[in-house]
């Protein structure tokens, strides 16, 4: 028998950190859901902090945490949250992904019928209660105005609003001081009857019509720029970054203009050949301009861009949204954001030789 001291853990949380930044609205999606190794989780969150972003959105799949009804596994979620909090980051938790036990056979993990809303509500309650004191912001579902995100069914703003109301009540039961965000609406110009989705602006209006106003504390929306600069003027039939201003107008029209907006996904892609991408230098400049615009918009609480890093390369255009490679090599855009967050003022200029 070998006798000895219990081995020390390889990864330790360490003393708490704080984020230093000139723009308190900086945020990034961290996507640690499928990151297995703890040191990589810690390294990712340390790099976010060192970049100067105080906000992160992280995805906590219901199906991972409650694989069978009433049986919770908090280990991975705790690990992510504890490291994030230690780095001084504010976590916004996105809650969706229906476990198999809560949906009919042969449906996707985005499919939740009304019969199972209560189970989702129970999960929201359990999650908010479990993370009381560590997580205060919760996103209810993701892009419910897309058919794919609604289990390949026609989108249904009224049904989603019912889900939001229930989740809001359960979250507040668990922690009255928490903030509930609606599922970030996807920017799309799809009209009524389109099989793939529905315009974010129409969807939002129908949410208000269904009585959603008192059931979210902060408006969640996604703002992708595609090939347009951030100051490209918004238009109802155009998808660009400033489209988010139209969503704010819908809120104002519904007497909800004092409520804050969080852009919980957004940004630009610099794939060399994708027709919806820009050149890498444009992505850098547009991203910094967008952070500046968010800073000026008093109704915008945070701009959380997509995305920081993925555990493994996705081997497609999505790799060109990231700031850091899967192997932790920081891209020039990361360094540019870091410079900006540290107060650099020469970021608007293109490289000149």
């Amino acid at each position, binding site marked *: 028998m070998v006798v000895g001291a219990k081995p020390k853990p390889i990864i330790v949380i360490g003393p708490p950190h704080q984020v230093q930044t000139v723009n308190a609205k900086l945020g990034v999606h961290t996507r640690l859901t499928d990151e297995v190794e703890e040191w990589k989780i810690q390294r990712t969150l340390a790099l976010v902090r060192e970049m100067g972003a105080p906000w992160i959105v992280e995805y906590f799949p219901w199906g991972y945490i409650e694989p069978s009804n009433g049986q919770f596994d908090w280990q991975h979620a705790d690990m992510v949250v504890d490291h994030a909090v230690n780095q001084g980051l504010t976590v916004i938790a996105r809650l969706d992904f229906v476990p198999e036990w809560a949906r009919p056979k042969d449906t996707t993990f985005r499919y939740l019928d009304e019969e199972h809303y209560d189970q989702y509500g129970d999960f929201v309650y359990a999650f908010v209660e479990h993370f009381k004191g560590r997580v205060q912001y919760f996103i209810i579902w993701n892009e419910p105005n897309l058919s794919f995100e609604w289990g390949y069914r026609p989108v249904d703003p009224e049904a989603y609003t019912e889900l939001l109301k229930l989740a809001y009540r359960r979250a507040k039961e668990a922690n009255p001081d928490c903030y509930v965000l609606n599922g970030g609406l996807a920017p799309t110009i799809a009209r009524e009857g389109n099989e793939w989705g529905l315009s974010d602006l129409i969807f939002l209006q129908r949410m208000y019509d269904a009585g959603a106003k008192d059931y979210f504390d902060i408006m969640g929306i996604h703002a992708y720029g595609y090939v347009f600069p951030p100051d490209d003027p918004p238009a109802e039939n155009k998808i660009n970054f400033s489209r988010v201003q139209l969503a704010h107008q819908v809120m104002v029209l519904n007497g909800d203009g004092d409520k804050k907006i969080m852009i919980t996904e957004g940004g630009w892609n610099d794939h*060399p*050949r994708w*027709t919806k991408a820009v050149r890498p230098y444009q*992505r*850098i400049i547009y991203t910094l301009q967008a952070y500046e615009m968010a800073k000026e918009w008093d109704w915008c609480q945070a701009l959380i861009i997509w995305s920081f890093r993925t555990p493994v390369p996705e081997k497609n*255009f999505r790799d060109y949204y990231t700031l850091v*490679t899967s192997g932790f090599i920081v891209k*020039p*855009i990361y360094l540019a954001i870091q410079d900006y967050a540290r107060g650099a003022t020469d970021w608007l200029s293109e490289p000149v030789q």
Partner: protein
Amino acid sequence: MDDRSVDRRWSLALIVVLALLTGLASLWLLLTPGEEAKDETWERIQQEGVMRIGIDASYPPFEDIDQEGNLIGFDIDLARELGRRLGVDVQFVVISFDGLYDALRVERVDLLLSALPFDLRLTEDVAYSHPYFNAGQVLAVGEDEESIFGVDDLEGRRVGVEWGSMGDVEARQLLRRMDLELYPYPTPEEALTMLVEGQVDAAIIDVVSTYQFIRERGAAKIVGPSVTDDPYVIATRLTSPLLMQWVNEAILELSANGFLDQLRMEWF
């Protein structure tokens, strides 16, 4: 050695590797005991005379839609050549990239040919062909340059990159192990223009932009192995071994007979 010699050298090496792989795969199919390989997709293509190909037409010059609404590009021509060789019609099914693999899985298409990078994570879900193009970053030098043969020769050199690109990332990694001067430019064209004007000694740029520049401006060449690899492949279902075997043999032949080089010169 000019760039065409280098191209030929690498093409030959690629052909040898592909031939070996195809030979081994064929041998495996022949020697595997038991029932003859079945492939319903292969049978259906032959019976109906139609091969359905999934693409996302938003990656020029590989696939795009022209002003008249026609599908055009390297992959489109390659797909049509495959159809011609097999004696079947090609039916393109345009799908966004996110839906390509699902479309293959639910048998809406027979194969994917869409600037599709090889993805190790998916090799238990789909079958991948031999690569037909490597879309990674390459090292470009002036056409008269005779002392730079690869990134190891960049010590003390001036290296141009597209600011923020993966070539820029690679060059910054090189900076950790050698002393070089890094010059970022807003676009690949500007970096390569600086190269041919002698403002930098080498440039690390994506291969498609480099080929396009060389075709239009000349005065530069690609040297050494690719700085990064991004092999494009064709995907079929795992249950389509005969179709995949045929695709692999076709790629081998199209590489050997110069068709792939011809396509490349036509499109970039």
